[in-house]
C-alpha cells in the first residue's frame, strides 16, 4: 500500500471508532427488533453485515414479521433506503474520475449516513482507503451490536442505552456545524431543514409519510431550492 493510502486508511480507522460505538448502540436495539420478528442471532447478524442500513433493516424486519411477499420486501427496502441513492450520487462527485471500478464497487457496499458524511468531509477528492478504514471499524460494530441485541436484549440498563443512542446525532452535528459556521448559506439551510423536518414530523397533515419518505422528500425539495437560489457554492 502506498504511504498516502496507508495514512488515509489509518485516519479512517480512527474516525471509525465513534461511528462503531454509535452503531453498537443503535444496532443493539435493531437486534431486539430482529428477535421480535422471529430471527435467530445468526440470521440477524448476517443481515447487518450485508445490508448496513438502520431504517432499511428495521423496515425489512417488519416485513419478515408479517411474512410479507418478496416483492413487498424489495419495494420496502427501495423506499427506506432511497436516500442512499442520493448520497451515492453526491459521493460519485467526490471521487476522482479515474477511481477504478473495483474501488467503486467496494465503497458502494457501505454507503451509510455516517460513512457518507465522513467521506464527504474528507479534504479534496476522496481517497477510497479512508472510507475502507472507517468501514473496517464500523461494520463489525454494526453486526456485533445486532448480534448482542438478539442474544441479550434487555440486559443493559435503560439509561445507558438512552445515552448511547445520541452518539450518532452528535456525529451528525460534528459534520454539519463547522461548515455552517463558515458558510452562511449552509447555516441557513441547516436551520430551515431542521424546522421543516420538525414540522413535517409533527403536523398531522404529513402523518401519512413514513420517516424514510419524509427524509427523501425534504432532501430533494430543500437541496433543489438551495441549488436554484444559491448556485455555485464554494467547494
Amino acid at each position, binding site marked *: 500500500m502506498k504511504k498516502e493510502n496507508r495514512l488515509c486508511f489509518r485516519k479512517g480507522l480512527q474516525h471509525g471508532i465513534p461511528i462503531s460505538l454509535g452503531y453498537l448502540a443503535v444496532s443493539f436495539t435493531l437486534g431486539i427488533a430482529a428477535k421480535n420478528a422471529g430471527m435467530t442471532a445468526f440470521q440477524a447478524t448476517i443481515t447487518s453485515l450485508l445490508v448496513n442500513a438502520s431504517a432499511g*433493516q428495521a423496515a425489512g424486519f417488519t416485513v419478515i414479521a408479517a411474512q410479507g411477499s418478496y416483492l413487498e420486501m424489495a419495494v420496502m427496502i427501495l423506499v427506506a433506503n432511497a436516500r442512499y441513492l442520493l448520497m451515492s450520487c453526491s459521493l460519485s462527485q467526490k471521487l476522482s474520475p479515474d477511481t477504478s471500478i473495483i474501488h467503486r464497487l467496494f465503497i458502494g457496499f457501505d454507503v451509510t449516513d455516517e460513512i457518507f458524511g465522513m467521506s464527504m468531509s474528507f479534504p479534496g477528492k476522496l481517497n477510497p482507503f479512508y472510507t475502507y478504514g472507517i468501514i473496517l471499524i464500523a461494520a463489525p460494530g454494526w453486526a456485533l451490536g445486532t448480534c448482542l441485541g438478539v442474544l441479550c436484549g434487555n440486559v443493559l440498563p435503560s439509561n445507558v442505552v438512552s445515552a448511547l443512542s445520541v452518539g450518532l446525532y*452528535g456525529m451528525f452535528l460534528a459534520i454539519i456545524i463547522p461548515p455552517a459556521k463558515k458558510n452562511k448559506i449552509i447555516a441557513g439551510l441547516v436551520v430551515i431543514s431542521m424546522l421543516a423536518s420538525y414540522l413535517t414530523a409533527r403536523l398531522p397533515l404529513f402523518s401519512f409519510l413514513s420517516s424514510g419518505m419524509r427524509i427523501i422528500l425534504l432532501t430533494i425539495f430543500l437541496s433543489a431550492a438551495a441549488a436554484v437560489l444559491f448556485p455555485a457554492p464554494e467547494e
Partner: protein
Amino acid sequence: MHNIYLYILIMAAVSYLIRVLPLTLIRKEIKNKTIRSFLFYVPYVTLSVMTFPAILESTGSIWSGGFALITGILLAWYGKSLFQVAVFSCLAVFIFELFL
C-alpha cells in the same frame, strides 16, 4: 412460509444496487452548475433532517435529548473533534438523566 434467507438476500441485493449504481454509472464529473450545487447541499439537508427532531425522541425524555443537541452544537461550533462531540453528547444525556 417464506424462506428467511431469501428475504435477507433481497434486502442485501436491493440495498447494494441503490448504493453502487450511481457510484459506477456516474464516472465523470458533472458539469451542470445546478446539479452540482444540488449534490453539494444534499448531505447538509439530509443530516439536518435526520438529526432533528429525531434526537429528541432517541433518549428517555425530550429534555435530555434537547440537552444533548445543544451540547453537540456548542462543541462542534467551537471546533471539537467528531469523537469528542459524539462522546460528550452521550455523557450529557447520561448525566442529565442521572440528576433530573
